[in-house]
């Protein structure tokens, strides 16, 4: 039997009473690089919060690495969405990575020799030692992602959750972040869930895709999930999946202007539609 990273059994998630996922049953195999995709508001962050044990299922159950989720599990590494104005942005990157070492324990923030070694090892794993000396405010979006990935690797996690790490990055830096996340996942042999609202930057790298939309979800290889019938079901509207030039375009059907639009816009259009109906 293939070991599973995440199992959902009839899972319903309803943060604040709003149903985001309804009666979803699926399994994400371990050791894969998985893109978590779907329009804004489809429940990517909600699903991550449930996996972290921060949100209780409204119905159904879930297993994460074979266990019911609970906050504080060292087996899950997490990189939250970037804040626009983080506190202490004038502090060096080191402080942010080191702050996560045994961060939930009471007492003075003394790192100790082993803590320091763990921080250095995590920084070296993502080649971010030089970044740790610079103030957070002086880092670019891609550099910041690299640094915070080190923080997520501190406790030798078996599952890595990256929440929209490509937000606000230009295509070149986005490609760097994708390559780094995939490389780290492979080297450590761990499962990576990488959420994004656009498929194309991830296309060559993904082993599997977990697509969310309208309370439902589908998981599997890109070629099986990102198809006209599956996405039409998830968007709740007829969409057409078109492959061209090594890229995938999701077109919302019927719009005569659709063909004239650029790929980025095209996918955004489909998403807006899905979002409005979700």
């Amino acid at each position: 039997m293939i070991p599973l990273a995440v199992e959902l059994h009839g899972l319903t998630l309803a943060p604040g009473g709003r149903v985001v996922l309804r009666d979803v049953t699926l399994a994400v195999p371990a050791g894969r690089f998985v893109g978590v995709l779907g329009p804004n508001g489809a429940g990517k962050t909600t699903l991550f919060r449930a996996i972290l044990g921060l949100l209780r299922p409204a119905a159904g159950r879930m297993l994460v690495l074979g266990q019911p989720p609970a906050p504080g599990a060292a087996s899950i590494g997490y990189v939250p969405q970037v804040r626009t104005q983080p506190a202490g942005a004038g502090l060096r990157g080191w402080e942010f990575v080191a702050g996560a070492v045994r961060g939930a324990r009471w007492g003075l923030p003394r790192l100790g020799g082993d803590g320091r070694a763990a921080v250095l090892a995590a920084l070296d794993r993502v080649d971010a030692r030089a970044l740790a000396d610079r103030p957070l405010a002086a880092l670019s979006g891609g550099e910041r992602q690299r640094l915070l990935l080190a923080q997520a690797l501190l406790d030798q996690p078996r599952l890595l959750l990256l929440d929209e790490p490509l937000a606000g990055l230009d295509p070149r830096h986005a490609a760097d972040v994708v390559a780094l996340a995939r490389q780290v996942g492979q080297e450590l042999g761990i499962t990576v869930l990488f959420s994004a609202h656009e498929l194309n930057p991830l296309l060559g790298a993904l082993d599997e895709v977990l697509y969310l939309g309208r309370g439902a979800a589908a998981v599997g290889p890109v070629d099986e999930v990102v198809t006209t019938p599956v996405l039409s079901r998830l968007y709740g509207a007829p969409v057409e999946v078109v492959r061209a030039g090594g890229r995938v375009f999701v077109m919302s059907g019927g719009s005569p202007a659709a063909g004239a639009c650029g790929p980025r816009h095209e996918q955004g259009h489909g998403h807006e539609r899905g979002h409005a109906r979700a």
Partner: protein
Amino acid sequence: MPVLDYDFMQNAFAAGTIVAVVAGLVGYVLVLRGQAFAGHALGHLGFSGATGAALVGLPPLPGLVAMTVLGGIGMGLLGERAGERDVAIGVVLSASLGLGLLFLHFYTGQAASAASLLFGNLLAVDAGAVWGLLALGVAALAALAALLRPLLFATLQPELAEARGVPMRAVSVLFLAVAALAVALCAQAVGVLLVFTLLVAPAATAQRLAGAVLPGMALSAALAVAAAWGGLALSYWTDWPPSVGITALSTATYAIAALAPSLSRFKLRNALRLTEGQGRSATK
């Protein structure tokens, strides 16, 4: 040193040092968390506490401490919704000041006691009060030390700290209680209206100068102590109230730290332009 020949001067230096160390350390985290305004408001809450205590014949310090700590805990429980929070805090702040004024009206004591509550008077601190400040200061710092690691984690990376199992609400409430103690101490030294001068200005200066938390906290405490000593020395030679010198010094330090980096950046930018052969624009 002639300054220390008098008992009241020794008491003032001891009290000023205790208050400044606590304010510098606690204030650093307060500023890092973006809760400076909450600190300011806690001082005003303390005013009604102190005047209320005086009205019923108690010394002002217990009333001050009780009111600020209760206020701090209340603010922590109120939660973190920024926008409305500032308004709510501001409304409670002015209500509290008004209440304090009413207490003063009934307490037909001297106007001097009101002035010393509002603006502080380190020179009036007696030896007994120094011991009281020391006990409160040690309590505040012990609580801060016990709290510091999860507090910094929750401040710098809140989403992650929550996922790692930091009890966010408890940390926030406990810290505001510690901050309230620091505010009560500051109010004893520089008055409820000037708590910013020891609690916020040195901390903000240190955050501009230091790139790491613990050195930053040490620098913040050192700057606060320097301002307190400088203010007292100035008061000795000029006969002005010590709070005047303390505010002047901590403001001046902050202004220098705030302006210096942008000045040097400006120079650097011009130097770069010159090396790129665009010397003309550098003359602007």
